[in-house]
């Protein structure tokens, strides 16, 4: 048995624990990494798995974790690229988009689905985190009509600065273009373009 290399990575922030663990594994069969936060724990565990190590974690009473990494015989080398994810929230590049593709939420029962979509839209309207853009198509456009029971919620969102695009083809198909109560009539170029650029796309 070769000796266990101990890497004390407490107090270090990402990506340092992973970098040190990787270095240690290049020269040692067995490495024990001590970390003190969940991000480091997850990253070091992923590194171990990726490099073909046996990974064992022990939680200590002082809140630290001892991660034991043991390289398996014949496991791949440590040359492979490994990018630790240091941030819990992914980088958001495009707009936050909500797509309303039906006047129901979920599939299976339309009566229930109609209850859920109304509750959903009301909640979105009153919560702090609002989308940048909302897109309505297929039977979803019915929710944006003057007679809609969620018109007030949608108007509130619109006045809070949420851009609302309503599929023109769909309004035409249901012959309700004159009844549109909120948002602007849009087309597939804009709809497909925005969905492609979205940083986050939420489809209830």
């Amino acid at each position: 048995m070769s000796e266990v290399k101990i890497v004390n990575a407490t107090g270090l922030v990402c990506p340092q624990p992973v970098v040190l663990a990787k270095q240690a594994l290049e020269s040692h069969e067995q490495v024990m990494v001590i970390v003190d936060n969940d991000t480091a724990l997850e990253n070091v565990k992923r590194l171990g798995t990726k490099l073909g190590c046996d990974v064992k974690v022990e939680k200590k009473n002082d809140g630290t974790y001892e991660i034991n990494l043991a390289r398996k015989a014949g496991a791949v080398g440590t040359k492979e690229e490994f990018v630790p994810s240091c941030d819990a929230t992914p980088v958001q590049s495009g707009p936050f988009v909500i797509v309303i593709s039906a006047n129901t939420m979920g599939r299976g029962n339309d009566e229930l689905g109609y209850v859920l979509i109304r509750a959903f839209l009301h909640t979105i309207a009153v919560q702090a985190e609002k989308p940048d853009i909302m897109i309505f198509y297929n039977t979803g456009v019915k929710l944006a009509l003057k007679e809609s029971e969620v018109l007030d919620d949608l108007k509130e969102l619109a006045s809070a600065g949420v851009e609302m695009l309503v599929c023109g083809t769909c309004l035409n198909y249901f012959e309700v273009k004159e009844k549109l109560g909120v948002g602007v009539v849009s087309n597939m170029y804009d709809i497909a373009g925005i969905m492609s650029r979205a940083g986050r796309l939420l489809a209830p």
Partner: protein
Amino acid sequence: MKEQPRYFVMLFKSVSYVLKAEKILQKEGLPHKLIPVPKHISADCGICLRFEPAIQSKIKAALLNKVEIEEIREMAN
């Protein structure tokens, strides 16, 4: 400062009661809104009907002997 409108919420034993009540109120032309049960009332994923206090008696009369109402509460703003 804009004054927040006051609302009451009507709670029912089940979703089907809410739907039944909603149909009756729609027929009677009594304004109401289906919303999720406010968090301070229950953490369940439930729904309820919201209405303005002024029409409480009309709503109660419309539902009398048709749908059992569990509770009417004032909404916290």
